[in-house]
């Protein structure tokens, strides 16, 4: 009986405590800087080295490059860059290997959509995704 009474005392004490719920959809949920949300891509920084494609464990990144329009400059520039978000596991490895930090993580995590097709993010979408960009990389 003592244990039962103790339990009752414990719960009634907690009733007056302030609750710990997040009011998530009403108030945005602050995420720490390191949080891994959907990537932001800087096409101008990309040197088409393919390292992110190689390291991706789920093969969700596809890219193509083309020759630099300025014939005097060597190297390639990016033409298309797609991330298939249906299978991306946000493991952060692509940003880790990127030598120029052309791809970085953002804190944006609200990715629900009504269609799977919308989870196929192309270069433009990733370029425009420029809020809450992670500072530390």
């Amino acid at each position, binding site marked *: 009986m003592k244990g*039962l009474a103790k*339990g*009752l005392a*414990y*719960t*009634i004490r*907690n*009733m007056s*405590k*302030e*609750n*710990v*719920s997040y009011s998530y959809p009403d108030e945005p949920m602050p995420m720490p800087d390191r949080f891994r949300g959907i990537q932001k891509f800087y096409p101008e920084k990309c040197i088409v080295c393919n390292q992110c494609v190689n390291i991706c464990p789920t093969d969700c990144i596809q890219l193509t490059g083309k020759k630099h329009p300025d014939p005097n400059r060597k190297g390639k520039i990016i033409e298309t860059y797609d991330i298939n978000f249906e299978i991306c596991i946000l493991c952060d490895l692509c940003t880790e290997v990127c030598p120029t930090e052309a791809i970085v993580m953002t804190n944006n995590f609200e990715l629900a959509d009504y269609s799977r097709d919308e989870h196929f993010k192309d270069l433009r979408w990733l370029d425009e995704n420029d809020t809450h960009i992670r500072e530390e990389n």
Partner: protein
Amino acid sequence: MEWVSGLLASEPSSSNFFTYIFISLPLLSVVLGFVTYAILAERKVLGYIQLRYGPNRTGGKFGLLQTVADVLKLLIKEDTRPKQADRPLFWLAPIIAFVPSFMVLSAIPFTESVVFANFGVGLLYFIAVSGLTTIGILTAGWASNNKYALMGGMRSAAQMISYEIPLLMSLVGVVLFSGSMNLIEIVEQQQYVPYILVQPIGFIIFVIAATAELNRIPFDLPEAESELIAGYHVEYSGFRFAFFMLAEYVYLFAMSALITVLFLGGWQPIPGLGFIPDFVWFAIKFSIVVYMFMWIRATWPRLRADQLMEFGWKILLPAAMANIFLSAIVKELFF
């Protein structure tokens, strides 16, 4: 309430029929209102104890319309029935469970004047009719043709048999002291001393047995969502499910009211505070009892079926018997 008695004595006619309906509507709406807000209150109390808000979306900050929305949703939901179910029984079960829960309400005196049927044996009537619900639950468990439901139904029947007896026996003390089974008379006897002080053992036994009758934690074995998923009503959806839900909470209402009447002195005020109207007193005491049920639900785990039986037969029943003896001796010596 003279005219009600006159009405009862008069010859049946269509106008009488409508009069009946009209006078029972307020009660019905009070009960339904209670059920609506008891569900909400339970969720809120659980929420606050568990450091969260509880419903807070539908109907303003406090989620006042949450249950209304839930009921509306249940009403427009598809009524599903398992293919192998026993059709007539499946259809009948919610009604068997639900109707007695409303029938018992007629016997409860809320104040001295607000009482619908002043039975001589109101107490006996209440206990007898409330026992019928178990048949509904058992029927639901059987008719669903689901193994979990069947188990829930069986558990419910076993539980009812074990706990109905101590429930009744714990009341014998009250009857001994008041010398009546009329609920109004019992309340009037408690004008100075509520029976909780005279019959503390009886009170505890009654509350425990009542919790078991209500299928609430720690005795919610027929439902036991972590073992039997939802027990007897696992196959019910939509409005039929709402019936079970309704029955459950109407019983909570009725049982709390009965505890208030039998042990807490009903509408009797605390001496010196008689200026507060009697229905307020009733409401206050009643709310405390309801809160207690919710508080227990937030705290304790569930018993196991065999422990429940053991507890019922080996502890509760002897204790109830001892209580009768004790009451008889006390009554003989001091009153």
